[in-house]
């Protein structure tokens, strides 16, 4: 349920905001000690999307969010809560 909540919270963000959020999520993912839990095919798609400059696009951002929710669920929930607070102003 967390990933749809995340996508809802980011849908109105400006591209620069999405980009810095993507960087934050990627940093959390690459710093995680739980990457054996993330399916390899998701890891490789995130890898390729970053190389192609597409990781900020909704399709890949959703995949990145999914990977972070698996590897670092508590950190992911804190990000959603922060986004929702900011959205509600």
């Amino acid at each position, binding site marked *: 349920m967390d990933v749809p909540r995340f996508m809802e919270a980011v849908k109105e963000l400006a591209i620069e905001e999405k980009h810095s959020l993507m960087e934050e999520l990627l*940093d959390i993912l*690459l*710093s995680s000690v739980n990457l054996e839990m993330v399916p390899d095919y998701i890891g490789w798609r995130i890898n390729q999307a970053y190389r192609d400059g597409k990781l900020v696009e909704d399709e890949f951002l959703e995949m990145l969010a999914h990977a972070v929710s698996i590897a670092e669920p508590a950190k992911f929930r804190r990000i959603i809560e922060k986004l929702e607070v900011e959205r509600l102003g």
Partner: protein
Amino acid sequence: MTIFSVEVVPKDPLWKIDLLAYIIEELGFSGVWISDHPHNRSSFITASHLLSKTSKIWTGLGVINPYTINPFIIAQLTASLTEIAPNRIKIAIGAGDKTTLESIGIERVKPLEKIREAVTIIRQLLTKKKVTIDRIHGRLDFNPRSNVPIYIGAQGPKMLQLSGEIGDGVLVNYSNPEDLEWAYNEVRKGIEKAGRRVESIDVAAYLTISLDLDPEKAVKTAIPYAAYILCGLPEKIMERMDVSEEKLIKVKEAIQKADWLRLYEIMDVDIVKKLVIVGKPIILEEKLREIIEIGYSQIVLGAPTGPRILQTLREIKKIILKNLSN
């Protein structure tokens, strides 16, 4: 000129190592060192992949252990890698950790002789395609495509001296400038004994670093690494650590049980700070100046790097570009 490289640990999935190497190359570092440990993914297979996916950075394999992989096979694998990326490969040979070797049924006997013999075998095979020493003789039926510098991973005084005597380079696995200065002088003894010039060997400080804007987080990330280092320190450095035998036994027990929570309880921050460059990124600038001043020609930015790896690598690159590039 000082070279800067980054350690990657193939404990992590290949998709992450691959992406990290891509980012390291983008940031302009010179190379990556792939650590080698029996519990992790194969460093040779990881290197094979990275060499085919990168184009500018070199890949170092280290530290490869001749007790776990026969030196002849190390040479065969290394020569095969030169076909993928000529002139972009380095290897480091070291005797490894006694406890780990014993846990997989290998006795670590006569490490100095083992390393000297391994370097001789590997070097002869890579340069002449054949080796004949004592009971060992054999050949490669293909041409290595380039020269491969052979480093030695060293911590104790005799191994450091041997590195200076026979290595193309040495990986010195300390982080404290005081320890690094002592180690550098030991390497120099070997260099002088062999009648070599200090410039002919790449003396690399293989640092353990954990940096973050929040120093507490940086320390927490560093604790398991500091504990491992503490348990493998040579006597000379251990004397300076001021750690009781009782404390050391507790740390060893926690490591053997992989009980990280216990390690967080028993490892003192002071000990961590003696073994790891830990704190805000700015602390690295001062330490790097000291280490370069000693004479080190390469700085390896070793794991864990910090609780946020991308942020830390970018900060480090800024520090190097702003203050230390020459």
